[in-house]
């Protein structure tokens, strides 16, 4: 893989932000937190929203509608990897199904078998949205992850995923205290001092690795001209332990079942190392 270049805290106004270069691919991710009301379907969880936007300067193909729809697809894949409880299974299957009928079935079944079983304490991968709850059913933190692709030199999905991880590590959420006054009304007190802020637990956030098929080989981290040679690509979300947390496919041609397995295995081999490298960099004192 090409070296990854990371910079944190590039947007002063955001709760957390990161800029990432892979080759000439340039991605900037900002995380915004705000107090909102939780969704009625999950009253004890925070909200999460992911958007991916493409700068029309990145590549001529992103002008007009294509950039929007492609951005939505990537956002769905990233959101699914961050919050499995909300739309994971559905999004992965929905995104894979129209692309290649038969193979998609295999991809979703692989997801189902390899995915760690959800435990009662919380989601088995991704962010623990339960921690974002302030007051059950009334207030919770809403987490908005906004990614902007400034330049496309291949491996955009991987870059957005890695930048999102870095931005989440950088994110500080202010501490709040809920006090109940005499009338029984809950009141929220926000402590704005930086020392009182807490960070998200990212240890279970998976990375999305794009494995592309070129000829009969599977390769990772393609540059833009190389991507045009690939017949199909599989975006696999893999967590730190090498477990598959979701898969999305893209590309013109379908993927054979045996190839699919090889691609998934490649992603599983690569992702834990990548995760460790990024975390080691983020935690190094030199940064």
């Amino acid at each position, binding site marked *: 893989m090409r070296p990854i270049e990371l910079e944190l805290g590039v947007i002063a106004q955001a709760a957390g932000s990161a800029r990432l270069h892979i080759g000439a691919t340039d991605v900037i991710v900002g995380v915004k937190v705000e107090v909102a009301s939780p969704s009625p379907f999950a009253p004890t969880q925070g909200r999460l929203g992911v958007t991916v936007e493409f700068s029309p300067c990145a590549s001529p193909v992103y002008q007009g509608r294509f950039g929007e729809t492609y951005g939505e697809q990537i956002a769905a894949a990233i959101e699914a990897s961050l919050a499995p409880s909300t739309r994971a299974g559905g999004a992965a299957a929905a995104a894979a199904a129209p692309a290649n009928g038969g193979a998609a079935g295999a991809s979703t079944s692989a997801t189902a078998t390899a995915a760690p079983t959800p435990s009662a304490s919380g989601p088995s991968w991704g962010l623990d949205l339960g921690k974002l709850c302030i007051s059950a059913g009334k207030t919770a933190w809403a987490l908005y992850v906004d990614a902007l692709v400034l330049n496309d030199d291949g491996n955009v999905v991987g870059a957005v995923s890695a930048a999102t991880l870095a931005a989440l590590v950088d994110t500080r959420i202010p501490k709040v205290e809920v006090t109940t006054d005499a009338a029984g009304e809950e009141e929220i007190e926000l402590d704005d001092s930086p020392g009182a802020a807490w960070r998200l637990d990212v240890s279970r956030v998976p990375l999305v690795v794009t494995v592309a098929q070129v000829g009969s080989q599977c390769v990772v*981290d393609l540059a833009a001209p190389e991507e045009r040679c690939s017949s199909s690509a599989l975006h696999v979300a893999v967590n730190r332990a090498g477990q598959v947390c979701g898969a999305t496919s893209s590309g013109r041609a379908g993927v054979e079942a045996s190839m699919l397995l090889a691609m998934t295995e490649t992603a599983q081999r690569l992702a834990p190392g990548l995760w460790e490298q990024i975390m080691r960099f983020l935690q190094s004192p030199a940064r």
Partner: protein
Amino acid sequence: MAAAGAVAVKVRALVPGADVALIERVLNVHDAPSNTTFVCVGDEISTEGQEGFLRGHGTQVVDGKLVATVCGVVERVNKLIYVKTLNSRYNAEQGDVVVGRVADLAGKAWRVDLKSRQEAKLLLSAVHLPGGIQRRRNAEDELNMRSFFREGELISAEVQSVHADGSVALHTRSAKYGKLVCGQLLEVPPNLIKRQKQHFHTLEALGVELIIGCNGLVWVAPLRPDRLAAANAAAGGGAGSAGADEDEAAAAAPPPPPSRMQLEVVCRMANAIRVLTRLYMPVYPASIMATYEAAVEGEVALADMMEPGFLEAVVGQEAQRRSSAMQE
């Protein structure tokens, strides 16, 4: 691109403007020299000591002062003052060797994308048919145009003429021009490429074929035996009938795939050109070879050639070359 399975990923801090800082440090220049040769948009161009001047490209008179409208180098020719930009599109000139991609078939001509202002035209009457056979000018011939060059294929050609409206006509009337297959295409700013006597280079010792197109497209490919024969035939004064037979035989049997070692040499050569492009240094055979040899001598891995360590070594080499040139 990396082979699947290798799990060595480098993660490091993003330093904006690292390349410029590197060049400044190694060449030992701090802050661009504030001379009048380089100007930015809005900079005033001094016209002192001149009795009147002619306003050229990239300049404008604002409040009686000459001001640059583009970034670049100030050029003065007698009274004419103009600014030459550091980065511009390719300006075709007659006789230029170019590499282009076939964009479209239009009637009796191919439209070729040269990364210029407009697409160039390659007339059917301006191509050299394989085997050197005479073309019969009929409708069937025009229908068979796709059998020579299809859309999306890369070709090398020469600029035959540049018309007054800026349109460019190409020709491939030589054995050395034609379709390019099995190699790497690199994009270089055309300003970095100087026009030279030779733009085709066959490095037989390394087994590499190099075409430095004047339009900023550079082709690096493993040397194939049939291409070598064609190059020799062209050098020896036109392909004879025997050469034509060989051409046909070569076309019938696909050449053997290049060995891994040969491919590595090609990749290294391509990376050497990428390094030069990144450092905005002129791309010509000597500079490419110097960079290539520096990489071989330093035993720099293929993937590490774009790393800051090697970039620094290349800039250091350039600094040394300049200081020795100054002494002479």
